[in-house]
């Protein structure tokens, strides 16, 4: 097993280097000059000041050197300083990651709590009206843009609070840690989490239903029923446990992609998280910050995929590590 994990980790190195090269090239292809933007857009800009800025940010060196610096820094865990704010990139990320991570984890919880029971019920009542409703809800979840769902949830909260308390209430936007003020924290993250979680649950629900349908047709389920076991034992202990394998995989893979959902949702709720930082970094042509954020996303993707594969093999003893 250790050998398998080591092999997988080694195989992920080309992916990480490829991603690093891609983001490095993409960022340099963006037209414009961060130094010109930083030194102000109004009036004439002193060429000496621009040259000094290039030297200060290391942009006067060859692209190859810049790339190797970036890779070496990444390997050491040193992401450099943000070209826009001048603060260390790790600090920029560290201040914003709690809110994004909390939303992502809560969204996963929301998704699992909705998807697994509904997907199971849908499979158990295949082609019934209940099944049709659940499938329709799932497809609607995939079709609805998360940012629109976010706007609608704000609208509902405004209307309901207006009706209930006589004054509209909006969730606060200044992030407070869960440990400092749990209630305020929850009021900040719950709507974005539900917004992202609904879409996430829709994908998971479809997978749970499909996996359950396959497992429910297996011989060992018939045997379990023939033994006279209670239906809830057949479903929970024999069917669901086996059907959850592909669901776990999907949850893991989708978790890695949650950052994409955060980019738009954080904008709707005006939250200062990683997603919003991404948009700002690209807009400001902040090479170091964008590169670090992309590498972080790709690293999360690679590690999550590996974790899912290991978990998959651990959950299913029939799978051998190849």
């Amino acid at each position, binding site marked *: 097993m250790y050998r398998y994990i080591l092999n997988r980790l080694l195989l992920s190195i*080309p*992916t990480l280097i*490829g*991603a690093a090269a*891609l*983001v490095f090239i*993409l*960022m340099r*292809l*963006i*037209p414009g000059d961060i130094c010109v933007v930083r030194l102000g857009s109004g009036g004439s800009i002193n060429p000496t000041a621009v040259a000094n800025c290039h030297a200060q940010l290391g942009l006067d060196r060859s692209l190859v050197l810049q790339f190797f610096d970036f890779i070496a820094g990444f390997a050491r865990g040193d992401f450099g300083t943000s070209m826009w704010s001048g603060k260390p990139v790790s600090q920029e990320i560290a201040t914003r990651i709690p809110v994004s991570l909390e939303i992502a984890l809560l969204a996963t919880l929301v998704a699992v709590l909705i998807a697994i029971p509904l997907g199971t019920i849908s499979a158990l009542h*295949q082609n019934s009206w209940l099944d*049709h409703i659940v*499938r*329709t809800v799932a*497809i*609607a979840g*995939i*079709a*609805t*843009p998360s*940012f*629109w769902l976010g*706007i*609608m949830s*704000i*609208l509902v909260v*405004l*209307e309901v609070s*207006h009706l209930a308390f006589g004054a*509209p209430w909006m969730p606060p936007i200044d992030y407070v840690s869960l440990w400092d003020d749990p209630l305020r924290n929850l009021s900040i993250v719950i709507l974005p989490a539900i917004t992202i979680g609904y879409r996430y649950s829709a994908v998971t629900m*479809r997978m749970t239903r*499909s996996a359950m*349908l*396959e497992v429910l047709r297996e011989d060992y389920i018939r045997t379990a029923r023939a033994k006279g076991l209670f239906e809830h034992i057949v479903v929970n202990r024999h069917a669901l446990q086996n059907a959850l394998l592909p669901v776990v995989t999907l949850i893991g893979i989708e978790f890695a*992609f949650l*950052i*994409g959902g955060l*980019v*738009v949702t954080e*904008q*709707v709720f005006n939250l200062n998280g990683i997603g919003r930082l*991404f*948009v700002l970094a*690209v*807009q400001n*042509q902040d090479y170091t910050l*964008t590169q670090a954020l*992309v590498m972080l*996303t*790709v690293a999360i*993707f*690679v590690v999550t995929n590996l974790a899912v594969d290991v978990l998959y093999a651990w959950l299913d003893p029939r799978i051998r590590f190849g």
Partner: protein
Amino acid sequence: MTVLAQDAPALRRSWLDTAFAFSRRQPLGTFGLVVVVAAAIAGLSAEWIAPYSPTANDFAAMTEPPSAAHWLGTDQFGRDLLSRIIYGARTALIIGFVSAFVGGFAGLVLGVGSAYFGGLIDLVLQRVMDVLMAFPLIIMALAVVAIFGTGVQNVIVAITVPLVPRCARVVRASALSIREVPYIDAARTCGFGHARIILRHMVPNVVAPFLIMLTAFVGQAILAEASLSYLGLGVQEPTPAWGLMLQGGAEEYASTAPWIAIFPGLAIALTVFGFSLFGDALRDAIDPKLRDR
């Protein structure tokens, strides 16, 4: 023999019978198709069916609620929402179809080619696909828009690029099993060229998963366009686009003029919903093995 030859045409059903059978077997899929066709008609004939110009401002009727004059109300600039949604269908479908088809076909060629040639070509292509797949669609699109700028054409490029590896991966999986079947060996033995074997013998056999994916891609592309436009990185004013209609005014006027936020979002959700339902039904019709998924 004569009897059999005469009977054969009678067994073949007309397209109307086929359509009727499809609608009976797949009511949700038929609903999806109706939504897609309605959106297509709206987009194609926007000039004739939209009651107002999508860019005409009426400063005397700003943030008007739905009424007989403006069925879905007006936005903060006094523009008719229904007209903008009808014209927005054109923008959404152009971007959706072009991105899905270009991305899909590029993925099809790369996926089948990768499976057919195998070896080093496959290894290198798959690693490239791994890298592209590791980028979430919206982040890849953000970078491409930052390079090429905003506007319809650049948004199409931004959405097409991330769709290529997603298609190539699925098509390659199907093509790998086809590569091993005897008729491919037979084609090689006959001395056919690589292009002929790929295009004439392999591609037709991966069309089923490809078509299913294509319908999903159109929906995904419409969602991606809406997200980019919402972030201000997609289609720019005054082009009517659903995501753009939700930018700015939608949140600002959420409590005083909620129709500005409700209707464009409904248009996006309903259209993508239509594509998803139709795609699911198409999958069931093409591949009965997947019916329960």
